[in-house]
């Protein structure tokens, strides 16, 4: 099915709105550039996301993972558990979109790898439940999305935004998420019912990942003195690393005290 004709102007509108945030002055905090003109609004969304995670997503994820204690590694003898199968299937369904993006970035290598991955895991891996491509053929997934494509095309990162449910993002990555839904080849070949099933699997996959990395997520969200600032910093650093826009590292021996940390405005609890 083709995307609805309404979608294109809608995307353009969201893009314009979000990129308007680029005009604000970014600050340099601990050697990391932070452009957060919507901080007050973002903090409200963060409080909502955090509460939702603590009361719904976290407990459900723990339930799904069926873990009582200890790290959520896959089964002791390398036996995948049901949650791992869901994670794998969701990840497999996201491959067509990643292939398209690699091609849009002029990266035929990763596109080919993900294409072989898709072929192997959809067949030998039984509809993507298992990952023989990664474990037996050394074809690990190359993760990419339209946000990265926009970065490759030279679009600036834009303002930091925390999205309800979806979590930390930037103007560029938010626009990328919208476009990713529209250009996903899966959306073109599946019918309505299949699309709902695919969507369900991908949401399940995300929830499974939340369970798998539950301790790390808990530690950032629940144990940080300012979980909003930590989430923002970790997201920006990791994302810039992914798209090849890393901030320069710093040498504390040049000045052990570094730049003043208090220059960045209010730090709410």
């Amino acid at each position, binding site marked *: 099915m083709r995307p609805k004709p309404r979608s294109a102007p809608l995307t353009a509108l969201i893009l314009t709105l979000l990129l308007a945030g680029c005009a604000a002055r970014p600050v340099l*905090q*601990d*050697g*990391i550039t932070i452009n957060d003109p919507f901080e007050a609004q973002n903090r409200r969304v963060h409080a909502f996301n955090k509460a939702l995670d603590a009361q719904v997503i976290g407990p459900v994820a723990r339930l799904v993972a069926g873990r009582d204690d*200890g*790290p959520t*590694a*896959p089964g002791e003898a*390398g036996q*995948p558990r049901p949650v*791992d199968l869901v994670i794998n299937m969701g990840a497999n369904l996201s491959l067509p979109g990643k292939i398209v993006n690699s091609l849009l970035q002029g990266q035929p290598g990763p596109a080919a790898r993900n294409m072989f991955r898709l072929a192997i895991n959809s067949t030998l891996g039984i509809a993507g439940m298992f990952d023989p491509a990664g474990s037996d053929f050394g074809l*690990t*997934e190359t*993760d990419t999305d339209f946000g990265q494509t926009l970065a490759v095309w030279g679009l600036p990162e834009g303002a930091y935004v925390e999205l309800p449910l979806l979590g930390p993002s930037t103007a560029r990555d938010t626009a990328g998420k919208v476009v990713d839904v529209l250009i996903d080849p899966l959306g073109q070949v599946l019918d309505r019912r299949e699309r709902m099933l695919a969507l369900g699997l991908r949401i399940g996959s995300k929830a499974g990942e939340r369970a*798998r990395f539950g*301790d*790390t997520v808990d*530690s950032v969200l629940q*144990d*940080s*003195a*300012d979980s909003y*600032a*930590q989430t923002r*910093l*970790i997201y920006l*650093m*990791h*994302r*810039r*690393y*992914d798209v090849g826009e*890393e*901030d320069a*590292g*710093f*040498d*504390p*021996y*040049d000045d*052990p*005290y*570094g730049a*003043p*940390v*208090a220059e960045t405005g209010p*730090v709410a*609890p």
Partner: protein
Amino acid sequence: MTTPMAPRSPKPDPSRPDPRIGRRAVLALIAGGAGLVAMRPALALGGAQAQAFIQRAVDDVYAVINSGQAPAAMYRQFEAILARYGDVDVVARTVLGPAARQVSAAQFASYKAAFQGYIGRKYGKRFREFVGGRIEVGGARAVKSYVVVDSVAYLSGRAPMKVEWHVSDRSGRVSFFNLIIEGVNMLASERAEMAAMLARRKGDVAALTADLQRAG
């Protein structure tokens, strides 16, 4: 040093028999320059030396991970490894920020001890996820005034992660002072955390120290 992995190091010049000699020469040159300009003792930290140093640290970490001890005992051992291989003084100072300049030596020492325990517990919890995995130490390269040692962490059930170790001997002792895990800079992250913890205590380092003894 299992597989020589240096994805981002410069390509070896075929006319040069051993690229490491060139790298070491460049390092020595940078080090010499830094010594002249800032009147610091000249550095002699080479890539191979930094690489071997990190390999030892990784081996020690894995010995603890695979020892199967109780978590509390493991955290104490991670803390000891951090004290042995890391430059806790410069990390604690950098993370505290300008407040480090205002406190007394005794106050800083107790903050530093609390900080070391906090890091041992906080990262020790993360290390438990490394059970059954492995870390392969790759190549080393000079960046600015320090050496970056690349490594890849292979954890069961997830994509390999790139972990960078920043190593320096500018304190007079070879030690690592930063870890970059998939782009996430630990020093920057802990600086932000400490700034928030200190703001909560309205700048009171003694109160922060008490909080750190329980945190992590």
